[in-house]
């Protein structure tokens, strides 16, 4: 009797377990989206904010029942790969995504990584959303890369023009880290400034990313007395130190960059010396952020302990991928369908107030729509927080 009871109970538990697991797995099919970017080393902040933005949004979607694509609710799973800012590893990461059957990947974060993964992505039918600026990635015959943010050659001229008109800026100096991204951003920024009629008083000074004292770096730049000092492609790690050194050397002019920054990092590293610093951000300032943006920030903070302001721009890539699939469910495993949809795709932008839209742009810069339309929000830093200086749209 006793043995029979045990057998019955075991059988019941086994059946129940199978039933429960079966139910759990049957709840929603899983849609895998990849991320290949840098989440370790000096530039870890760039990729980590990407990955965490995606994970936050995925958890949010899954918690609320999944994402509706063609009448089927999908749970979203983020598959991440740390490329350590190394193009060889970025290729390995993209190959891993291909082996996992993933067709949509966010990243890589830097120019050389994004260029390196192009053949793998094109051969394996992967659309990827790099945070890298080389135009060849987005110009035909290339067609699988979609720029995930506003490029410096789009934001730079807008910022310089604004400062010429509103602050009387006439002389500009550029300083950049001795790496491919910042150097190419410096060159295009300098060219744009000259095209606008600005006098470029210095654009040859560079620094190593591991510099611990920027005083000797900035001394020759400050001696040229620019009205505007542009920190081309500056990483959030270096920005506070550069600002602080410039101010301590007595520089009283404007300082700007075309990269996204983090308010907490600026406050800790430069304090009030960073007041007035101009950078590019997303829709996090109170006057622009929608209820969904506030909830995203709240969920991100709860998940990871601290929000990163860079995520204001990085929240968008996953949203674009999913919304485009929702517009054309055949794109879920067919990037050619995705590409067809991009030309006409339009959906409400959930993260901004007003009637802002999600749509693909880039025709002016690349001759085809290979850029997500994120608002060009130019911020100034004041007393620990960003304030919106102006908002523009890119095409």
């Amino acid at each position, binding site marked *: 009797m006793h043995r029979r009871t045990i057998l019955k109970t075991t059988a019941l538990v086994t059946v129940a377990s199978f039933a429960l697991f079966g139910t759990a797995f049957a709840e929603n099919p899983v849609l895998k989206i990849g991320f290949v970017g840098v989440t370790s*080393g000096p530039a870890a902040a760039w990729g980590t904010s990407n990955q965490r933005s995606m994970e936050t949004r995925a958890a949010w979607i899954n918690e609320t029942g999944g994402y509706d694509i063609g009448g089927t609710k999908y749970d979203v799973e983020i598959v991440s790969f740390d490329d350590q800012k190394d193009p060889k590893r970025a290729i390995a990461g993209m190959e891993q995504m291909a082996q996992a059957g993933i067709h949509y990947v966010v990243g890589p974060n830097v120019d050389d990584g994004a260029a390196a993964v192009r053949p793998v992505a094109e051969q394996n039918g992967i659309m990827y959303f790099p945070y890298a600026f080389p135009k060849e990635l987005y110009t035909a015959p290339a067609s699988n890369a979609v720029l995930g943010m506003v490029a410096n050659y789009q934001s730079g001229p807008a910022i310089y023009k604004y400062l010429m008109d509103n602050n009387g800026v006439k002389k500009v100096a550029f300083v950049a880290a001795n790496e491919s991204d910042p150097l190419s951003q410096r060159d295009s920024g300098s060219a744009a400034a000259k095209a606008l009629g600005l006098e470029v008083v210095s654009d040859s000074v560079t620094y*190593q990313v591991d510099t611990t004292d920027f*005083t000797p770096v900035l001394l020759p730049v400050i001696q040229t007395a620019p009205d505007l000092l542009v920190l081309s492609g500056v990483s959030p790690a270096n920005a506070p130190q550069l600002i602080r050194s410039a101010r301590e050397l007595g520089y009283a002019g404007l300082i700007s960059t075309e990269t996204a920054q983090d308010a907490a990092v600026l406050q800790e590293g430069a304090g009030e010396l960073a007041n007035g610093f101009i950078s590019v951000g997303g829709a996090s300032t109170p006057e622009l952020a929608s209820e969904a943006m506030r909830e995203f920030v709240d969920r991100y903070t709860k998940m990871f302990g601290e929000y990163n302001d860079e995520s204001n721009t990085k929240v968008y890539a996953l949203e674009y991928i999913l919304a485009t699939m929702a517009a054309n469910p055949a794109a879920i495993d067919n990037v050619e369908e995705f590409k067809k949809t991009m030309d006409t795709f339009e959906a409400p932008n959930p993260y901004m107030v007003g009637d802002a839209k999600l749509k693909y742009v880039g025709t002016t810069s690349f001759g085809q729509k290979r850029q997500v339309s994120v608002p060009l929000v130019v911020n100034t830093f004041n007393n620990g927080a960003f304030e919106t200086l102006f908002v523009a749209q890119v095409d």
Partner: protein
Amino acid sequence: MEQILANGLYLGAQYALIALGLTLIFSLMNVLNFAHGQMYVFGGFVTYTVVAQWGLPFILGLVASAIILAVMGALIEVFLFRPVIRKSKRDESTMLLAAGIAFFLDAVILLLFGEKQRGVPKILNGVFNWDMRIIMPYDRILILVLAIAMIAGFIALMQYTKAGRAMRALAQDRMAAQLMGVDVDRYSMIGFALGAMLAGLVGGLLVTITGINLGMGGPTSVKAFMMIMIGGAGVISGAIAGGFILGMMESIGLTVLAAYGDITYLVIFASLMVFLAFRPQGLMGKPWG
């Protein structure tokens, strides 16, 4: 010119302090500690946590960095390097172990402190300005003075204390020191702890100026290796000289060569290669080790 010299002196003092810990460990145990930069970063994050997050005075942050890194160094020596050195006669075993510890500490730092750049508020406001010839913020002057004081304290410790004499004896001839009654295990542990503590202290000092981030460890180790190669590996005075020479070269190069792009380190590396071709043991090292 005065500004270039002042910048070089400031850079040199912090570099010398970083190199001291590395050369101490090398001289005592013949270990190239690739994790030295990560220890520097860890020390910076400890000071950041104590000062910026807990709101305690900066000096407590420095003390916490010193203690935690000293304990970490002692544990690494006792549980990792000592058994490997005992079991393996091949130098690359300790090098691989050191590289592994560096990767491990990188991962621990990412988990504990996150990926963001961190910094603590300035400990002194104001800028010293001598007729526009030397411009130096007061906090940098303070860090310069503290770094020089620490270097002097370290030299005094090595010269005038029993532990310092024992460590110097170990560095000169491990076997002879053992035969003379020096407790090799004990002083190896103390030496490693002291080296790690120095790395942590520099991290703590510089977090007020340069801030700290996850990626600073590797480049810091590379610079520290350059300094001890210039001065002579395993020689305390060589590490100090190497630090000041590198700091001065960097300051002069960044000013004089600025118009030609970022070729300062190219010139420094090229000079170092030529220098080592003629004097591979460094300025103060001995050709036999």
